[in-house]
């Protein structure tokens, strides 16, 4: 096709080289890319590099939030720091009292497990990671962490905060990693109810303060206020971490299943720091299998 010579509104001449042909080419190329990205693992390495190349921009976008955080910490008033210090001190006292109780329980648990001849639970190791203030996609709940394969983070690793399960890592880049929150519509976490050990699956809804439990039949023993913890089935999440609290059980529809929702335990809407959980000794950094 011959280039079309056009003159624009201000009299400048330019050549508008057949956009139709070019669109045809880019459409073919993007369809091929999408096919490769969706169907296989061919693009995994490429996406890791591209994601790593994106990291400086993400850090730059995060910098105002990080600066504000820094200012709040460094320019705080003395009285404020003193009150904060005393609350933290009393909190720490309470926590260590709890821990003493936990230590005896843990010892007892280990003894009982030994009696039952079952494998002792290996305590999980954690590393603190920071979330960059970058919104990736309003429809999906994805976050960027400042820990990557360099720090031992790996794909599928569980993330928790002080109150409960946050999500898991979906892509490890060198200096950073991409993670999915438990409330993303594409995410499901195996849970069990503390009160009676009933196991089910909690699915994200796309809403930061709501999880859905769609696989509970009408006769399931569940009621509002029940605590959900990870069941440890499936292997992605270690067992026993709080996931949420049931806030609504609705059997009014004529479905075979109950309509159950839960509130996540973790403060997903104001996260800044998360803990990366290393489930067993052989997962601990330096991780040996980044090529999964």
């Amino acid at each position, binding site marked *: 096709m011959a280039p079309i010579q*056009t003159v*624009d*509104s*201000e009299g*400048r001449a*330019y*050549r*508008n*080289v057949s*956009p*139709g042909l*070019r*669109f045809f080419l*880019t*459409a073919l*190329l*993007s*369809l*091929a*890319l*999408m096919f*490769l*990205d*969706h169907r296989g693992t061919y*693009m995994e390495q*490429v*996406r890791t590099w*591209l*994601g790593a*190349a*994106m990291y400086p*921009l*993400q850090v*730059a*976008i*995060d910098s105002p*939030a990080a600066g504000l955080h820094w200012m709040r910490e460094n320019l705080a008033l003395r009285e404020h720091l003193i009150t904060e210090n005393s609350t933290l001190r009393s909190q720490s006292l309470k926590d260590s009292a709890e821990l003493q109780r936990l230590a005896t329980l843990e010892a007892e648990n280990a003894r009982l497990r030994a009696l039952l001849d079952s494998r002792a639970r290996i305590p999980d190791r954690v590393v603190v990671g920071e979330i960059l*203030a*970058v*919104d*990736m*996609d*309003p*429809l*999906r709940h*994805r976050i960027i962490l400042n820990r990557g394969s360099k720090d031992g983070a790996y794909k599928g690793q569980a993330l928790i905060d002080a109150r409960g399960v946050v999500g898991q890592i*979906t*892509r490890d880049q060198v200096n950073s990693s*991409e993670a999915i929150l438990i409330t993303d*519509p*594409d995410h499901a976490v195996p849970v069990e109810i503390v009160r009676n050990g009933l196991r089910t699956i909690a699915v994200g809804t*796309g809403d*930061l303060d709501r999880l859905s439990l769609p696989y509970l039949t009408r006769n399931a023993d569940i009621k509002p206020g029940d605590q959900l913890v990870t069941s440890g089935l499936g292997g992605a999440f270690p067992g026993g971490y709080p996931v949420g609290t049931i806030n609504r059980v609705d059997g009014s529809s004529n479905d075979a299943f109950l309509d159950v929702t839960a509130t996540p335990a973790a403060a997903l*809407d104001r996260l800044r720091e998360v803990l990366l959980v290393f489930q067993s000794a052989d997962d601990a950094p330096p991780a040996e299998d980044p090529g999964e």
Partner: protein
Amino acid sequence: MSAPRWPVWLLVLLALAAELLSLPVALQPLRPSWTTMVVIYWCLMWPGRFGVFSAFTVGLIVDVAHGSLLGQHAFSLSLVAYVVLKLHLQMRVFPLWQLTLSVFALLTLEAFAVLWIDGASGRADFSPGRWGPVLAGALLWPVAMAAMDRFRERLERRDSSFN
């Protein structure tokens, strides 16, 4: 001979940053897709320097930034660029309200292309949240266009290589 292209990529970078900037949860559904608006603007104003291939490149960057399927936004943005390039002579003489309506149509087209690919890859999500950015983008177009016009006209006045 060829005019410098850095202003094009500067605006793309700014748009990308504005798109990724963390907003309060209440405002998130109304975050306009700035990159699409910048692509429309450059195809409209500098079609000799910004075409389908540039839009494709922008789309790839957006895909990496959003963590979406690689090629998804590359496709939707090259589609938008193609339509704008075909119609840019008409669109330039539109009065502002008519141009804003066309931008609304283009943003809707882009959102539909993205929705279609989401559906084809098994991630269909028909939540109304998808249309918030379209509406916000159309509402903000007059302001965004005025700002980008100012930037472009200043460049063209100061440096004749942009003409």
